[in-house]
């Protein structure tokens, strides 16, 4: 990645740029290929792919309202993408973003109502609480892995369903609201996250919280002792152990920190977009977060870009369906194809040669589930 010939000073910018280009090349390629496949599918159903894609892009970025929808879609994906990326840096696969997001959401739905009397002050308190509950919920699979040897992929999947059922129960029983839509009571209006305005619709300051979260994730991973430890454990448990870095503790913390991001995401969704936790609540943000993280090569800033792509895809799809009759589910198919392309190590090797393996690095932990 680094050219040793590059000196210091002014060329730092060039180095960063060339690294960024290298890192983006493969994801962009994956997106392009998936769009090509999508075009073939659209053609096969007798529709016009060019019209469909231009409607898609208009729907995603063509107007303030479209951009607003894209931002609203992207915000939760940044959080769940970070939940995956941080854990991934410790060599762990966090499939539990969905559940962690729900736990944060129900926390916000509860405190946003019960602390409503505090007015705007309730907001920061609520969001901090979401971070804490997400952290704790994320620590569960971490502890199960570190101290009981239970594989995090399975436990996080299982914990997703536990969290979903738990929050649905809470939202429909003890926290049930009086509104027509089943779910919790509306949180205090004063405690809501303010909308951005500028004709951006429901887009709110939550997107900045998300970007801030990405910056925090970056700082944790690359500017703190803890992050140093997490990354060392993820890249080489043997070397980490050699250097005296505790592997178990970092396993728990990496999943817990990931959970904290997803939990905050759930809180931001409730306090920003819906004002309550409806049943059913937004679905699949956790799973889509996996795609976002992979597309962003498990780097916090890549996650932000990936989330914007995914968010744009979702909002553009509506317009595409409306204008050209191409079903909006096509986007989910595209996502699946992107996922498949991004992870196929051997495919990359076959196409680009062995050296290109590094292109696909950062997309898979080299570990099995057996032990």
């Amino acid at each position, binding site marked *: 990645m680094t050219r040793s010939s590059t000196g210091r000073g002014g060329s730092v910018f060039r180095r960063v740029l060339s690294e960024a280009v290298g890192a983006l090349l493969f994801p962009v390629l994956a997106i392009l290929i998936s769009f090509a496949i999508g075009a073939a599918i659209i053609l096969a159903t007798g529709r016009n792919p060019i019209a469909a894609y231009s409607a898609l892009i208009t729907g995603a970025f063509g107007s303030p309202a479209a951009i607003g929808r894209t931002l609203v879609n992207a915000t939760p994906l940044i959080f769940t993408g970070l939940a995956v990326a941080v854990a991934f840096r410790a060599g762990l696969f966090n499939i539990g973003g969905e559940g962690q997001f729900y736990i944060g959401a129900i926390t916000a739905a509860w405190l946003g109502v019960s602390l409503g009397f505090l007015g705007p002050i309730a907001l920061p308190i609520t969001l901090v609480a979401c971070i804490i509950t997400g952290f704790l919920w994320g620590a569960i699979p971490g502890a199960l892995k570190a101290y009981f040897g239970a594989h995090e992929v399975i436990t996080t999947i299982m914990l997703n369903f536990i969290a979903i059922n738990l929050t649905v129960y809470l939202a429909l029983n003890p926290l049930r609201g009086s509104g027509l839509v089943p779910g919790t009571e509306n949180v205090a209006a004063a405690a809501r996250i303010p909308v951005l305005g500028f004709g951006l619709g429901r887009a709110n300051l939550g997107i900045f919280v998300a970007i801030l979260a990405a910056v925090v994730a970056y700082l944790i991973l690359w500017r703190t002792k803890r992050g*140093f430890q997490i990354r060392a454990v993820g890249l080489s448990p*043997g070397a980490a152990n050699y250097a005296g870095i505790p592997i178990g503790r970092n396993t728990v913390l990496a999943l817990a920190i990931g959970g904290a991001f997803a939990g905050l995401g759930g809180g931001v969704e409730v306090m920003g977009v819906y004002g309550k936790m409806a049943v059913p609540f937004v679905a699949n943000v956790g799973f889509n977060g996996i795609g976002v993280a992979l597309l962003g090569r498990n780097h916090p800033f890549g996650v932000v870009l990936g989330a914007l792509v995914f968010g744009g895809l979702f909002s553009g799809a509506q317009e595409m369906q409306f204008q050209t009759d191409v079903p909006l589910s096509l986007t989910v198919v595209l996502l699946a194809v992107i996922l498949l392309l991004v992870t196929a190590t051997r495919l990359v090797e076959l196409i680009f040669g062995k050296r290109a393996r590094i292109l696909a690095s950062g997309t898979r932990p080299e570990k099995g589930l057996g032990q």
Partner: protein
Amino acid sequence: MVEARARDNGPGAKAPKVLEMTGVTKTFGPVTANDDVSLVLHRGEILGLLGENGAGKSTLMKILYGLYKPDSGTIYVDGEEVQIRDPKDAVRRGIGMVHQHFTLIPPLTVAENIVLGAEPRKGGALDLNRAMRETEVLSERYGLKVDPRARVADLSVGVQQRVEILKALYRDARILILDEPTAVLTPQETEDLYRTLQELVADGLSIILITHKLGELLGVSDNITIIRDGRVVDTVKTSETEEGSLARLMVGREVLLRVEKGENEVGTPRLVAQGLVVLSSTGATAVHGVDIEVRAGEILGVAGVDGNGQVELAEALAGTRLVHKGRVYLDGEDVTGLGADERQERGLAYVPEDRSHKGLVQDFSLWENNALKTYDEPPFSGRFGRIFPKVMRRRAAQNLKAYDVRPSEPDARAGALSGGNQQKAILARELSGNPKAIIAAQPTRGVDVGAIEFIHRQLLEQREEGKAILLISLELEEVRSLSDRIVVMYDGRIVGEVGPDATDEELGLLMAGRGSGVGER
């Protein structure tokens, strides 16, 4: 040990050749693993294939078993030239292999393991009864006692090895290759194994025994082919040789360099182990009560054949492996209960024997690797758990230059460096912190001559500065030329101490567990 064989020279020259390999060459990139290797195996013969780790023994046998394709060379089985493309071909030619790391499936039964891939059938079903019967017949015929119904996971290592041999016999192997078969066995199990091998050759099989333990070959083999650095050095009749000359043949490489070593002033003990007992990762006792004292200003060499507890000893001293019994002292302080991080902070440096998986995080940059142990200490870290990459990078740049690491660009990925430069980068990290004691485990393994020289010079400089250095190496020449004293480790114990002027023969005998000071077990 086993009695010397009754038949003096084995089958003698009249027995037909069952296997012949001529001119086999195999390279992996720039590394030549086998260079024009030829060997002959006669019917009813036990041929020892002797060589140090990395001499190319296993590569040769993998070629024979169809796991590697040779670059050139010919293989004859029963006088007929053959191509062995995969293990299936090898099995068809009557070649069976018992790998050093067993290829058994722990949750399955003995019988299931044995018949896998060549299952007896009844209708479409697996005829487990027949599988068990056949296992029993085979095991009785060769005296390899196993219970066909037992799960492999529940068996001792020695019995598992019997299962591996039975697997080959079940496939009608007539040439049996055993790769370091005694590495995992107790002395009693080793004797049982050798008795079995005698029975097998009496039955007309031919056996190649790969090992680096020369002592063991004497009792059991007919002939010994010695490999060094990928080439056949010699083939000798077992009855006409003895351990000393075998040791010389095996390790006696040309002396690469003689290091100029100044007089040293020995000070107080810096790194001390008392009655150290350490368990290996499998839970077996790897170090049986070792006492060691490394004093300031001296290099204490630990010689020994690989796998005799050196790694576990180093790890226990460094704090990356739990001490089961005994104490470790660093500069007089009892550090037994402290972790690796705390011992490092108290002045213990450790160059590990495995630079790829321990010494370096391959995908970290050089500056991150340079801070792998000190990232949590000032000036690299501050309040709120912050770390300062700029400071780390600057320090790394200095260290990399000082230790002549190329490229010296701190942002380079560690994994992209050559072996020698990786090792220098580790040295840069470990030695730049001005430690009190240094554990250097195989510091020159797999690096080029230039790097070897550099590393040796660094270690001697540290010695002159009054550091206490424990040098663990498999290279006799290295141990001898650097050390002030040499202890030899065998089977987890220190079996003798000699001076740097000890002969190959003295050291070879100690390394084979046959030294004058060693009690026969």
